[in-house]
């Protein structure tokens, strides 16, 4: 089934959209969640929530690419789950103290945050566009898909140390670009 056909199922509120999504993109989403969470049950929970989230958002959003759309949802859910697990583990410790102190820290307005976010996003896209394809693909696979350095090194037939150095060079490049654009995080 093509992406357009699956999207059509979502828009017409046909529940088989979820089964089709799982058949087509289930393994892909599971892999992204597993790369970040390293836990089967948590990853499975994120994937199930991905279909629900897609179901809720699909009539208002019409994605060009389902792989990017589902990947983005599952990635966000996995990050949320990671934070939830970490907070639960450290609930009695520093996390609780920090969460209490959050009340005293004035937060920036949501407009300012949105402008910053857009600036970061545009700079990142520009930086990625200027990279050689190999570097760009490696960066995305490592920091978007969450693939392990070991796996990437094996695939590129280089040592882990060399791959780590290559990643460090990329990160430094991104940092320099962000600084040159006046973006400080």
């Amino acid at each position, binding site marked *: 089934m093509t992406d357009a056909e699956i999207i059509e199922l979502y828009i017409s509120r046909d529940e088989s959209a979820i089964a089709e999504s799982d058949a087509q993109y289930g393994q892909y989403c599971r892999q992204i969640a597993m790369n970040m969470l390293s836990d089967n049950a948590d990853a499975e929970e994120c994937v199930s929530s991905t279909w629900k989230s897609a179901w809720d958002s699909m009539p208002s959003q019409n994605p060009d690419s389902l792989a*990017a759309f589902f990947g983005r949802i599952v990635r966000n859910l996995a990050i949320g789950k990671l934070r939830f697990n970490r907070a639960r583990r450290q609930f009695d410790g520093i996390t609780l103290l920090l969460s209490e102190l959050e009340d005293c820290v004035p937060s920036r307005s949501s407009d300012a945050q949105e402008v910053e976010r857009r600036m970061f996003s545009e700079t990142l896209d520009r930086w990625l566009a200027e990279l050689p394809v190999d570097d*760009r693909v490696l960066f995305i696979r490592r920091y*978007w898909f969450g693939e392990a350095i070991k796996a990437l090194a094996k695939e590129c037939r280089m040592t882990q140390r060399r791959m780590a150095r290559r990643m460090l060079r990329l990160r430094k490049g991104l940092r320099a670009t962000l600084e040159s654009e006046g973006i400080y*995080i």
Partner: protein
Amino acid sequence: MRNERVFDELTEVSDEYIIEAMGHILKKSRAAIIRWCVIAAVLLTITGIGAYLFFSSGLLPFLGGGNGG
């Protein structure tokens, strides 16, 4: 934390880069499947040729203990 924010912001990277990286992942996994298929085919061929030579060489009666006599 700052590094977590960068990680969050990365989620919004353009679709084209995600699709490009996914294409590479799929290409690599397809290449791995083809490699395993070729290895399996070579092994099967070698086993087949070996079995053919073995059965056609007339060694079977000696290995099987002849006709039991």
